[in-house]
Protein backbone atom coordinates (compact mmCIF):
# COMPACT_ATOMS: atom_id res chain seq x y z
CA UNK A 1 0.00 0.00 0.00
CA UNK A 2 1.48 3.28 -1.05
CA UNK A 3 -0.68 5.65 0.92
CA UNK A 4 -1.89 5.55 4.50
CA UNK A 5 -5.49 4.56 5.17
CA UNK A 6 -7.84 7.09 6.71
CA UNK A 7 -9.79 5.79 9.69
CA UNK A 8 -12.66 7.55 11.45
CA UNK A 9 -14.15 6.36 14.73
CA UNK A 10 -17.66 7.70 14.98
CA UNK A 11 -19.65 7.58 18.21
CA UNK A 12 -23.42 7.23 18.45
CA UNK A 13 -25.02 6.38 21.78
CA UNK A 14 -21.88 4.99 23.43
CA UNK A 15 -20.53 4.18 26.87
CA UNK A 16 -16.85 4.40 25.88
CA UNK A 17 -16.23 0.67 26.28
CA UNK A 18 -15.60 0.17 22.57
CA UNK A 19 -12.99 2.93 22.61
CA UNK A 20 -11.35 1.21 25.55
CA UNK A 21 -11.32 -2.01 23.56
CA UNK A 22 -9.51 -0.21 20.72
CA UNK A 23 -6.98 1.33 23.07
CA UNK A 24 -6.57 -2.08 24.64
CA UNK A 25 -4.90 -3.30 21.43
CA UNK A 26 -1.71 -2.00 23.08
CA UNK A 27 1.28 -2.27 20.79
CA UNK A 28 -0.86 -3.53 17.93
CA UNK A 29 -2.43 -0.11 17.87
CA UNK A 30 0.97 1.30 17.03
CA UNK A 31 1.18 -1.06 14.05
CA UNK A 32 -2.21 0.16 12.95
CA UNK A 33 -1.13 3.77 13.25
CA UNK A 34 1.85 2.95 11.03
CA UNK A 35 -0.56 1.95 8.29
CA UNK A 36 -3.36 4.38 8.93
CA UNK A 37 -4.12 7.94 9.94
CA UNK A 38 -6.88 8.53 12.42
CA UNK A 39 -8.89 11.36 10.94
CA UNK A 40 -11.73 11.45 13.44
CA UNK A 41 -12.03 9.97 16.94
CA UNK A 42 -13.56 12.56 19.27
CA UNK A 43 -13.38 10.53 22.45
CA UNK A 44 -9.64 9.85 22.20
CA UNK A 45 -8.30 12.92 20.40
CA UNK A 46 -9.30 16.51 19.99
CA UNK A 47 -11.78 16.35 17.13
CA UNK A 48 -14.92 18.41 16.75
CA UNK A 49 -17.94 17.96 14.57
CA UNK A 50 -16.70 20.69 12.22
CA UNK A 51 -13.64 18.61 11.39
CA UNK A 52 -15.92 16.35 9.39
CA UNK A 53 -16.43 19.13 6.85
CA UNK A 54 -12.79 19.07 5.88
CA UNK A 55 -12.67 15.35 5.26
CA UNK A 56 -13.08 14.44 1.63
CA UNK A 57 -13.01 10.71 1.87
CA UNK A 58 -12.57 8.12 4.59
CA UNK A 59 -11.36 4.59 3.95
CA UNK A 60 -12.68 2.91 7.07
CA UNK A 61 -15.40 4.29 9.32
CA UNK A 62 -15.95 2.49 12.61
CA UNK A 63 -19.44 3.24 13.89
CA UNK A 64 -19.82 2.72 17.60
CA UNK A 65 -23.01 2.83 19.60
CA UNK A 66 -26.63 2.90 18.58
CA UNK A 67 -28.62 5.77 17.12
CA UNK A 68 -30.71 7.33 19.84
CA UNK A 69 -30.84 11.01 18.89
CA UNK A 70 -31.24 13.00 15.71
CA UNK A 71 -27.67 14.19 16.15
CA UNK A 72 -26.32 10.62 16.10
CA UNK A 73 -28.27 9.99 12.94
CA UNK A 74 -27.01 13.13 11.27
CA UNK A 75 -23.34 12.47 12.08
CA UNK A 76 -23.47 8.81 11.16
CA UNK A 77 -25.15 9.50 7.82
CA UNK A 78 -22.69 12.27 7.11
CA UNK A 79 -19.66 10.09 7.73
CA UNK A 80 -21.18 7.15 5.90
CA UNK A 81 -21.55 9.20 2.72
CA UNK A 82 -17.77 9.69 2.68
CA UNK A 83 -16.68 6.24 3.83
CA UNK A 84 -15.55 3.38 1.63
CA UNK A 85 -15.87 0.59 4.21
CA UNK A 86 -18.46 0.99 6.93
CA UNK A 87 -17.96 -1.07 10.05
CA UNK A 88 -20.54 -1.54 12.81
CA UNK A 89 -18.32 -1.88 15.84
CA UNK A 90 -19.68 -3.35 19.06
CA UNK A 91 -23.02 -4.79 20.15
CA UNK A 92 -24.79 -1.40 20.16
CA UNK A 93 -23.92 -0.59 16.57
CA UNK A 94 -24.68 -4.16 15.44
CA UNK A 95 -27.84 -4.98 17.45
CA UNK A 96 -28.91 -1.89 19.38
CA UNK A 97 -27.15 -2.88 22.59
CA UNK A 98 -28.37 -2.72 26.17
CA UNK A 99 -30.05 0.65 25.70
CA UNK A 100 -32.45 -0.94 23.23
CA UNK A 101 -34.23 -2.38 26.26
CA UNK A 102 -35.74 1.11 26.62
CA UNK A 103 -37.88 0.12 23.65
CA UNK A 104 -39.86 -2.14 25.94
CA UNK A 105 -41.50 1.15 26.95
CA UNK A 106 -42.97 3.98 24.93
CA UNK A 107 -40.65 6.89 24.22
CA UNK A 108 -42.90 9.12 26.29
CA UNK A 109 -42.52 6.85 29.33
CA UNK A 110 -38.75 6.69 28.86
CA UNK A 111 -38.39 10.48 28.73
CA UNK A 112 -40.73 10.90 31.66
CA UNK A 113 -38.75 8.51 33.82
CA UNK A 114 -35.30 9.79 32.87
CA UNK A 115 -35.95 13.53 32.79
CA UNK A 116 -38.85 14.14 35.15
CA UNK A 117 -39.76 11.34 37.55
CA UNK A 118 -36.57 9.64 38.68
CA UNK A 119 -35.63 10.53 42.28
CA UNK A 120 -32.22 11.91 41.31
CA UNK A 121 -33.60 14.33 38.72
CA UNK A 122 -34.12 18.03 39.37
CA UNK A 123 -35.77 19.54 36.33
CA UNK A 124 -38.10 22.25 37.56
CA UNK A 125 -38.66 23.78 34.16
CA UNK A 126 -39.48 20.31 32.81
CA UNK A 127 -37.13 20.61 29.85
CA UNK A 128 -36.85 17.55 27.64
CA UNK A 129 -34.21 16.82 25.00
CA UNK A 130 -34.95 18.68 21.80
CA UNK A 131 -36.79 21.52 23.52
CA UNK A 132 -35.01 24.83 23.38
CA UNK A 133 -36.88 26.33 26.31
CA UNK A 134 -35.09 29.30 27.79
CA UNK A 135 -31.91 28.26 29.42
CA UNK A 136 -29.14 30.75 30.03
CA UNK A 137 -26.57 28.81 27.99
CA UNK A 138 -28.73 28.34 24.90
CA UNK A 139 -27.79 24.68 24.86
CA UNK A 140 -30.24 22.24 23.36
CA UNK A 141 -29.81 18.54 23.81
CA UNK A 142 -30.65 16.72 20.57
CA UNK A 143 -34.12 15.28 20.20
CA UNK A 144 -34.50 11.54 20.65
CA UNK A 145 -35.56 9.42 17.67
CA UNK A 146 -38.60 7.21 18.19
CA UNK A 147 -36.74 4.01 19.04
CA UNK A 148 -33.13 3.05 19.65
CA UNK A 149 -31.84 2.14 16.20
CA UNK A 150 -28.91 0.00 15.22
CA UNK A 151 -26.52 1.48 12.69
CA UNK A 152 -27.68 -0.58 9.70
CA UNK A 153 -31.17 0.86 10.00
CA UNK A 154 -29.80 3.98 8.36
CA UNK A 155 -26.66 3.03 6.44
CA UNK A 156 -25.31 0.02 4.54
CA UNK A 157 -22.88 -1.79 6.80
CA UNK A 158 -20.02 -3.74 5.19
CA UNK A 159 -18.51 -5.40 8.23
CA UNK A 160 -19.99 -6.26 11.62
CA UNK A 161 -17.71 -6.56 14.63
CA UNK A 162 -19.93 -7.74 17.51
CA UNK A 163 -19.23 -7.97 21.23
CA UNK A 164 -19.62 -5.76 24.27
CA UNK A 165 -16.95 -4.65 23.79
CA UNK A 166 -15.51 -6.66 20.88
CA UNK A 167 -12.79 -8.95 22.22
CA UNK A 168 -9.18 -8.26 21.29
CA UNK A 169 -8.83 -11.30 19.01
CA UNK A 170 -11.83 -10.24 16.99
CA UNK A 171 -10.63 -6.66 16.63
CA UNK A 172 -7.24 -7.90 15.45
CA UNK A 173 -8.88 -10.20 12.94
CA UNK A 174 -11.01 -7.33 11.68
CA UNK A 175 -7.99 -5.05 11.36
CA UNK A 176 -6.04 -7.71 9.46
CA UNK A 177 -8.95 -8.40 7.12
CA UNK A 178 -9.45 -4.71 6.39
CA UNK A 179 -5.77 -4.12 5.72
CA UNK A 180 -5.67 -7.10 3.36
CA UNK A 181 -8.78 -5.81 1.64
CA UNK A 182 -7.24 -2.42 0.99
CA UNK A 183 -4.08 -4.08 -0.25
CA UNK A 184 -6.29 -5.86 -2.76
CA UNK A 185 -5.46 -9.32 -1.45
CA UNK A 186 -8.98 -10.36 -0.41
CA UNK A 187 -12.52 -9.32 -1.22
CA UNK A 188 -15.04 -8.50 1.47
CA UNK A 189 -18.57 -9.79 1.24
CA UNK A 190 -21.09 -7.17 2.28
CA UNK A 191 -22.37 -7.90 5.77
CA UNK A 192 -19.41 -10.02 6.85
CA UNK A 193 -19.53 -10.76 10.57
CA UNK A 194 -16.10 -10.99 12.13
CA UNK A 195 -16.75 -13.74 14.70
CA UNK A 196 -17.40 -17.46 14.96
CA UNK A 197 -19.88 -19.25 12.76
CA UNK A 198 -21.11 -21.65 15.44
CA UNK A 199 -22.96 -21.09 18.70
CA UNK A 200 -21.08 -20.43 21.90
CA UNK A 201 -22.57 -23.68 23.26
CA UNK A 202 -20.69 -25.58 20.54
CA UNK A 203 -17.37 -24.14 21.69
CA UNK A 204 -18.05 -24.28 25.41
CA UNK A 205 -15.46 -26.31 27.32
CA UNK A 206 -17.83 -27.08 30.21
CA UNK A 207 -19.05 -30.54 30.95
CA UNK A 208 -22.53 -31.01 29.50
CA UNK A 209 -24.78 -33.90 30.52
CA UNK A 210 -26.44 -36.01 27.83
CA UNK A 211 -29.82 -34.61 28.86
CA UNK A 212 -30.30 -31.41 30.81
CA UNK A 213 -33.09 -31.60 33.38
CA UNK A 214 -33.72 -28.94 35.99
CA UNK A 215 -36.45 -28.31 38.54
CA UNK A 216 -36.66 -24.55 37.96
CA UNK A 217 -34.58 -21.67 36.64
CA UNK A 218 -32.54 -19.95 39.30
CA UNK A 219 -31.32 -16.41 39.23
CA UNK A 220 -27.61 -15.95 39.32
CA UNK A 221 -27.42 -15.05 43.02
CA UNK A 222 -29.42 -18.09 44.08
CA UNK A 223 -26.90 -20.70 43.04
CA UNK A 224 -23.24 -21.37 43.72
CA UNK A 225 -22.02 -22.21 40.24
CA UNK A 226 -19.70 -25.16 39.66
CA UNK A 227 -16.94 -23.83 37.32
CA UNK A 228 -16.66 -27.08 35.37
CA UNK A 229 -20.32 -27.88 34.63
CA UNK A 230 -22.82 -26.54 32.10
CA UNK A 231 -24.65 -23.50 33.52
CA UNK A 232 -28.02 -24.63 32.21
CA UNK A 233 -27.63 -27.99 33.93
CA UNK A 234 -27.19 -26.06 37.17
CA UNK A 235 -30.37 -24.07 36.55
CA UNK A 236 -28.68 -20.80 35.62
CA UNK A 237 -29.85 -19.19 32.40
CA UNK A 238 -27.06 -19.08 29.83
CA UNK A 239 -27.59 -17.63 26.36
CA UNK A 240 -24.92 -19.86 24.83
CA UNK A 241 -27.32 -22.04 22.81
CA UNK A 242 -28.40 -19.12 20.61
CA UNK A 243 -25.38 -16.81 20.76
CA UNK A 244 -22.62 -16.51 18.20
CA UNK A 245 -19.31 -17.92 19.38
CA UNK A 246 -15.79 -16.82 18.58
CA UNK A 247 -15.50 -14.44 21.52
CA UNK A 248 -12.97 -16.64 23.31
CA UNK A 249 -15.59 -17.14 26.05
CA UNK A 250 -14.15 -14.80 28.69
CA UNK A 251 -17.43 -14.82 30.68
CA UNK A 252 -17.70 -18.60 30.71
CA UNK A 253 -14.11 -18.82 31.93
CA UNK A 254 -14.91 -16.34 34.70
CA UNK A 255 -17.78 -18.59 35.80
CA UNK A 256 -20.44 -16.26 34.44
CA UNK A 257 -23.17 -17.50 32.07
CA UNK A 258 -23.27 -16.05 28.56
CA UNK A 259 -25.36 -12.89 28.28
CA UNK A 260 -25.44 -12.79 24.51
CA UNK A 261 -23.30 -9.78 23.57
CA UNK A 262 -22.04 -11.46 20.38
CA UNK A 263 -25.57 -11.44 19.03
CA UNK A 264 -27.62 -14.25 17.54
CA UNK A 265 -25.86 -17.23 15.97
CA UNK A 266 -26.22 -17.55 12.17
CA UNK A 267 -29.67 -18.52 10.86
CA UNK A 268 -31.57 -17.41 13.93
CA UNK A 269 -34.68 -15.49 12.99
CA UNK A 270 -35.55 -14.02 16.38
CA UNK A 271 -33.15 -14.66 19.21
CA UNK A 272 -35.64 -14.15 22.04
CA UNK A 273 -38.19 -16.53 20.56
CA UNK A 274 -35.42 -19.03 19.82
CA UNK A 275 -34.34 -19.02 23.45
CA UNK A 276 -37.95 -19.34 24.59
CA UNK A 277 -38.10 -22.45 22.42
CA UNK A 278 -34.83 -23.82 23.75
CA UNK A 279 -34.80 -23.19 27.49
CA UNK A 280 -38.21 -23.57 29.19
CA UNK A 281 -38.61 -27.13 27.92
CA UNK A 282 -35.74 -28.21 30.21
CA UNK A 283 -37.83 -27.69 33.35
CA UNK A 284 -39.28 -30.66 35.23
CA UNK A 285 -38.97 -33.13 32.35
CA UNK A 286 -39.14 -36.05 34.77
CA UNK A 287 -42.29 -34.90 36.56
CA UNK A 288 -44.28 -33.55 33.63
CA UNK A 289 -47.05 -36.16 33.61
CA UNK A 290 -47.63 -35.84 37.34
CA UNK A 291 -48.23 -32.11 37.25
CA UNK A 292 -51.37 -30.31 36.14
CA UNK A 293 -51.03 -27.88 33.22
CA UNK A 294 -51.29 -24.88 35.53
CA UNK A 295 -48.70 -26.18 37.95
CA UNK A 296 -46.26 -26.97 35.15
CA UNK A 297 -46.63 -23.47 33.67
CA UNK A 298 -45.95 -21.97 37.08
CA UNK A 299 -42.71 -23.91 37.44
CA UNK A 300 -41.23 -22.48 34.23
CA UNK A 301 -41.42 -18.92 35.47
CA UNK A 302 -38.51 -16.89 34.10
CA UNK A 303 -38.07 -13.47 35.60
CA UNK A 304 -37.93 -10.78 32.90
CA UNK A 305 -37.52 -12.99 29.80
CA UNK A 306 -37.34 -10.04 27.40
CA UNK A 307 -34.57 -8.38 29.40
CA UNK A 308 -32.63 -11.62 29.67
CA UNK A 309 -33.00 -13.03 26.18
CA UNK A 310 -32.67 -9.76 24.29
CA UNK A 311 -30.18 -8.14 26.66
CA UNK A 312 -28.00 -6.80 23.83
CA UNK A 313 -30.20 -7.56 20.86
CA UNK A 314 -33.63 -6.01 21.35
CA UNK A 315 -32.76 -3.68 18.48
CA UNK A 316 -33.08 -6.71 16.19
CA UNK A 317 -36.56 -7.62 17.41
CA UNK A 318 -39.16 -7.23 14.72
CA UNK A 319 -41.99 -7.43 17.21
CA UNK A 320 -40.76 -4.38 19.07
CA UNK A 321 -40.74 -2.42 15.85
CA UNK A 322 -44.28 -3.50 15.09
CA UNK A 323 -45.61 -2.06 18.33
CA UNK A 324 -43.32 0.92 18.84
CA UNK A 325 -43.41 2.48 15.41
CA UNK A 326 -46.24 3.86 13.44
Amino acid sequence: MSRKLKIAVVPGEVCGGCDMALVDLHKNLIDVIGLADIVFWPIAMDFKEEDLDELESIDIALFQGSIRTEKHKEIIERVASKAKIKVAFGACACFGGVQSLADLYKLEEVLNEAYLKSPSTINEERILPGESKANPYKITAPKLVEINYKVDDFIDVDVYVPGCPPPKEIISEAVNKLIKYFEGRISLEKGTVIAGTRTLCDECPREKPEKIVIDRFKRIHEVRLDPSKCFLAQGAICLGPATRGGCGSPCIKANMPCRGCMGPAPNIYDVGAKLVSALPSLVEIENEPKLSDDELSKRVTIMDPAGLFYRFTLGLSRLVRMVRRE
Partner: protein
Amino acid sequence: MEERNKNWEPKIIAFLCKYCASAGADLAGVSRLKYPANILPITVPCSGSVDMQFIVRAFEMGADGVLIGGCHTPSDCHFLRGNFKALKRVSVMKELLRQIGIEPQRIRLEWISATEGKKFAEVAREFTEEIRKLGPLGDKHE
Protein backbone atom coordinates in the same frame (compact mmCIF):
# COMPACT_ATOMS: atom_id res chain seq x y z
CA MET B 1 -53.45 2.42 8.99
CA GLU B 2 -57.02 3.70 8.72
CA GLU B 3 -57.62 2.01 5.43
CA ARG B 4 -56.53 -1.22 6.97
CA ASN B 5 -59.05 -0.74 9.77
CA LYS B 6 -62.12 -0.33 7.61
CA ASN B 7 -62.40 -3.85 6.32
CA TRP B 8 -60.24 -5.44 8.94
CA GLU B 9 -60.87 -9.08 9.75
CA PRO B 10 -58.79 -10.96 12.31
CA LYS B 11 -56.18 -13.22 10.77
CA ILE B 12 -55.28 -16.24 12.83
CA ILE B 13 -52.63 -18.84 12.10
CA ALA B 14 -53.29 -22.21 13.71
CA PHE B 15 -50.45 -24.68 14.15
CA LEU B 16 -52.24 -27.98 14.62
CA CYS B 17 -50.51 -31.23 15.47
CA LYS B 18 -51.02 -33.96 12.94
CA TYR B 19 -52.27 -36.61 15.32
CA CYS B 20 -54.87 -34.76 17.41
CA ALA B 21 -55.75 -31.14 16.74
CA SER B 22 -55.44 -31.35 12.96
CA ALA B 23 -57.56 -34.51 12.93
CA GLY B 24 -60.01 -32.66 15.17
CA ALA B 25 -60.16 -29.81 12.64
CA ASP B 26 -60.79 -32.33 9.87
CA LEU B 27 -63.61 -33.82 11.90
CA ALA B 28 -65.13 -30.35 12.35
CA GLY B 29 -65.02 -30.06 8.55
CA VAL B 30 -66.54 -33.42 7.69
CA SER B 31 -69.18 -32.91 10.39
CA ARG B 32 -70.07 -29.66 8.61
CA LEU B 33 -69.65 -27.61 11.76
CA LYS B 34 -69.51 -23.88 11.16
CA TYR B 35 -66.50 -21.91 12.27
CA PRO B 36 -65.02 -18.60 11.08
CA ALA B 37 -62.83 -18.54 7.98
CA ASN B 38 -60.34 -16.33 9.84
CA ILE B 39 -58.41 -19.38 10.95
CA LEU B 40 -55.66 -20.57 8.63
CA PRO B 41 -54.58 -24.03 9.75
CA ILE B 42 -51.06 -25.36 9.27
CA THR B 43 -50.51 -29.00 10.14
CA VAL B 44 -47.31 -29.67 12.05
CA PRO B 45 -45.91 -33.02 13.23
CA CYS B 46 -46.36 -32.18 16.91
CA SER B 47 -47.23 -29.17 19.08
CA GLY B 48 -43.74 -29.66 20.53
CA SER B 49 -42.26 -28.95 17.10
CA VAL B 50 -43.67 -25.43 17.01
CA ASP B 51 -40.67 -23.16 17.36
CA MET B 52 -41.61 -19.87 19.04
CA GLN B 53 -39.91 -18.15 16.11
CA PHE B 54 -42.89 -19.33 14.01
CA ILE B 55 -45.09 -17.11 16.15
CA VAL B 56 -42.86 -14.10 15.57
CA ARG B 57 -42.87 -14.84 11.84
CA ALA B 58 -46.66 -15.23 11.82
CA PHE B 59 -47.13 -11.89 13.58
CA GLU B 60 -44.68 -10.24 11.25
CA MET B 61 -46.50 -11.59 8.20
CA GLY B 62 -49.72 -10.03 9.39
CA ALA B 63 -51.34 -12.54 11.73
CA ASP B 64 -53.23 -11.03 14.64
CA GLY B 65 -53.35 -14.23 16.67
CA VAL B 66 -51.73 -17.65 16.78
CA LEU B 67 -53.49 -20.82 17.87
CA ILE B 68 -51.48 -23.88 18.78
CA GLY B 69 -53.41 -27.13 18.97
CA GLY B 70 -51.94 -30.24 20.53
CA CYS B 71 -52.97 -33.52 22.12
CA HIS B 72 -54.40 -33.66 25.61
CA THR B 73 -51.98 -33.85 28.54
CA PRO B 74 -50.75 -35.95 30.22
CA SER B 75 -50.67 -38.98 27.93
CA ASP B 76 -52.20 -38.38 24.48
CA CYS B 77 -49.12 -37.04 22.68
CA HIS B 78 -47.97 -39.28 19.83
CA PHE B 79 -44.41 -38.31 20.67
CA LEU B 80 -45.06 -38.77 24.39
CA ARG B 81 -43.96 -35.37 25.71
CA GLY B 82 -44.30 -32.86 22.87
CA ASN B 83 -47.40 -31.20 24.29
CA PHE B 84 -45.60 -30.48 27.58
CA LYS B 85 -42.86 -28.73 25.63
CA ALA B 86 -45.43 -26.56 23.88
CA LEU B 87 -47.08 -25.74 27.20
CA LYS B 88 -43.84 -24.66 28.83
CA ARG B 89 -42.72 -22.60 25.85
CA VAL B 90 -46.04 -20.86 25.38
CA SER B 91 -46.22 -19.85 29.02
CA VAL B 92 -42.82 -18.08 28.81
CA MET B 93 -43.57 -16.71 25.33
CA LYS B 94 -46.71 -15.02 26.68
CA GLU B 95 -44.66 -13.20 29.31
CA LEU B 96 -42.14 -12.17 26.65
CA LEU B 97 -44.91 -10.74 24.46
CA ARG B 98 -46.46 -8.94 27.41
CA GLN B 99 -43.13 -7.23 28.12
CA ILE B 100 -42.74 -6.20 24.49
CA GLY B 101 -46.23 -4.71 24.56
CA ILE B 102 -48.21 -7.34 22.68
CA GLU B 103 -51.27 -8.81 24.38
CA PRO B 104 -50.42 -12.35 25.54
CA GLN B 105 -53.96 -13.43 24.67
CA ARG B 106 -52.90 -13.33 21.04
CA ILE B 107 -51.38 -16.78 21.56
CA ARG B 108 -53.71 -19.55 22.56
CA LEU B 109 -52.78 -23.11 23.35
CA GLU B 110 -55.52 -25.73 23.26
CA TRP B 111 -55.60 -29.47 23.61
CA ILE B 112 -57.94 -30.85 20.97
CA SER B 113 -58.22 -34.57 20.37
CA ALA B 114 -59.09 -36.23 17.06
CA THR B 115 -62.66 -36.75 18.28
CA GLU B 116 -63.21 -33.16 19.37
CA GLY B 117 -64.35 -31.53 16.12
CA LYS B 118 -66.91 -29.65 18.11
CA LYS B 119 -64.30 -28.28 20.49
CA PHE B 120 -62.16 -27.14 17.56
CA ALA B 121 -65.07 -25.21 16.05
CA GLU B 122 -65.85 -23.64 19.41
CA VAL B 123 -62.23 -22.64 20.04
CA ALA B 124 -62.03 -21.17 16.54
CA ARG B 125 -65.17 -19.09 17.12
CA GLU B 126 -64.17 -17.95 20.58
CA PHE B 127 -60.60 -17.08 19.64
CA THR B 128 -61.67 -15.17 16.52
CA GLU B 129 -64.02 -13.06 18.61
CA GLU B 130 -61.33 -12.46 21.23
CA ILE B 131 -58.87 -11.28 18.58
CA ARG B 132 -61.58 -9.14 16.98
CA LYS B 133 -61.99 -7.37 20.32
CA LEU B 134 -58.22 -6.85 20.67
CA GLY B 135 -58.03 -5.34 17.17
CA PRO B 136 -55.17 -5.49 14.69
CA LEU B 137 -51.76 -6.25 16.15
CA GLY B 138 -49.69 -3.21 16.95
CA ASP B 139 -52.35 -0.60 16.21
CA LYS B 140 -53.16 0.66 19.66
CA HIS B 141 -49.68 1.30 20.86
CA GLU B 142 -48.76 4.53 19.16
